[in-house]
């Protein structure tokens, strides 16, 4: 651990103004200079976070077809392979569907939920308690839950059977597997997003709402005409959070529920990074996808910011 470099504060019984200045420089010597106490955290963060990301970018330009093979410089070869690989484009397609379908649905439903909760209807306290639940549960527990419900003998098919509707192997059918993963995202993401948005809606000025009510605005217009514009910026932040978590961490649910299959029906970009590194051990390829993911994250954040930027 680093020690703050400073002279020990001298207690001079001298003149008060002088003493006060001396005191200020004593402890505050670091003020304005380098924040020495931050060095351990910075080193730690650099070693375990920045280091691997820099390494990822470097490896993306290496040919490294297996952990025991010595890597060689490959220039843009990995990216050339990537852009002509059908699996990569399938992953781009799946990630795009996941986000373009999942994110707007999640944000709109979360907003309506949040709006409902801040009106303080009956049971709103119970609702607030429940909305946090998905945020508490780990990815494996959530996945096991959906695995138990969506498997051919699970709850969903059981309920459908009592209604006389034939079931499906939801996670093993290429037609429904990606949809099932989006449902998991929605289940897990709506509650937390709603809680976050509600925390902003709580702060909306009561007088504005009162005035709108006086003008005869009902709930629907109040929600979209008053609350939405006010909270728009903030909803953008929530959307960005959920966007990043969908784009970067979808690998967990895919790994736990479908392993990218059937075929490439649920291979997302994030899962492709994992699969190429730890299943196929094509390391250059894997990290090249990682770089693509990084760039897409930045581009997506920029787009969301433009779409949900305050208009007035």
């Amino acid at each position, binding site marked *: 651990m680093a020690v703050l470099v400073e002279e020990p504060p001298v207690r001079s019984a001298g003149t008060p103004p002088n003493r006060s200045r001396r005191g200020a420089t004593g402890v505050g010597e670091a003020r304005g200079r380098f924040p020495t106490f931050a060095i351990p955290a910075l080193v730690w*963060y650099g070693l375990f*976070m920045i280091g691997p990301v820099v390494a990822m970018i470097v490896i993306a330009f290496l040919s490294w077809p297996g952990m025991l093979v010595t890597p060689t410089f490959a220039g843009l070869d990995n990216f050339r392979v990537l852009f002509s690989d059908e699996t990569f484009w399938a992953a781009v397609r799946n990630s795009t569907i996941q986000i373009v379908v999942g994110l707007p649905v999640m944000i709109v439903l979360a907003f309506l939920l949040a709006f409902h909760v801040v009106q303080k209807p009956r049971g709103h306290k*119970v609702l607030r308690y429940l909305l*946090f639940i998905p945020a508490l549960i780990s990815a494996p527990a959530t*996945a096991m839950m959906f695995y138990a419900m969506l498997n051919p003998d699970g709850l969903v098919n059981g309920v459908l059977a009592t209604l006389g509707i034939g079931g499906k192997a939801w996670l093993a059918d290429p037609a429904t597997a990606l949809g099932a993963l989006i449902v998991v995202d929605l289940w897990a993401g709506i509650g937390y997003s709603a809680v976050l948005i509600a925390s902003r809606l709580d702060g909306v000025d009561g007088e504005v709402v009162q005035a709108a009510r006086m003008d005869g605005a*009902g709930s*629907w217009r109040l929600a979209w005409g008053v609350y939405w514009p006010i909270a728009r910026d903030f909803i953008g932040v929530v959307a960005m959070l959920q966007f990043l978590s969908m784009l970067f961490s979808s690998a967990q649910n895919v790994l736990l529920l479908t392993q990218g299959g059937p075929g490439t029906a649920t291979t997302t970009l994030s899962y492709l990074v994992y699969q190429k590194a730890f299943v196929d051990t094509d390391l250059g390829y894997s990290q090249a996808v990682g770089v693509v993911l990084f760039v897409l994250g930045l581009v997506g954040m920029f787009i969301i910011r433009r779409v949900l930027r305050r208009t007035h």
Partner: protein
Amino acid sequence: MAKPTAGTRLRDRIGSITGGTIAWVYAALLILPFYYFVVSSFKDNDGIFESPLALPASWDLSNFTDAVRQASLGPAIANSAITTVAALVLTLVLALPASFALARATGRAGRIVEALFSLGFLIPSFAALFPTFLLAAAMGLFHTRTFLVLLLPATAMPLAVVILTQFMRTIPRELEEAASMDGASAWQVMRQVYLPICIPGIATVLLLNFLSFWNEYLYALVLIGPDTAQRTIQVALPTLKVDAGTDYGMLMAGTLVTLLPVYLVYTILQRQMQKALVSGAIKG
């Protein structure tokens, strides 16, 4: 705003009904799986498939004991607890002095360091899983929970530093100057002036990271691996899912066991936890 017409009134009616319906349908979707889980964890496969929502015939705990034995959940819980607590301590040990320094720094260096930490929110750390794995191997800590204890605080650093720095900024300078006039060293100023005021911030950081450390999956899976003496609960749980012939009652019993500590903390510290989750996300 225009006078309400019959049309808009109808739309408003529909609107308010929609909000309430969405809310309660979603609430039902949050509760139903738990009900299903609890009743299923006392049944065998036949019972689960035939009457998924019926109450179990007997409250037999054998699924729980089987789950704990088959997936070695006992040591897994211990490993998760050790990893989480050690990583939390390390997070504070690193983040507190850093935030203290950043809150007091006025120069350009302070701003640059702070910006560096904020950039961390953009890092797809998971995509860099493979280099992280290489790092673990290079340090000779591959397949140990020790590496996770070292790694997790780094992933938590941006948020922890941002939250704590904000708290420390609220401390009036006079308080610190008074202390320094008394000859206190920077270290003493931090401990005696800054820390007590930061308790709410520290609680937020601890609660948020308790959740994310306890729930950490992919890092734990790849870096600690399958060794039952080292693996955490999140890695142990999915081993109950078998490609052919999963015992669902056991799987659900096991899942409930992993959820227990989190629920316990949430129920006791509901207020603080909710506040932590909201403030943590927004600063991130």
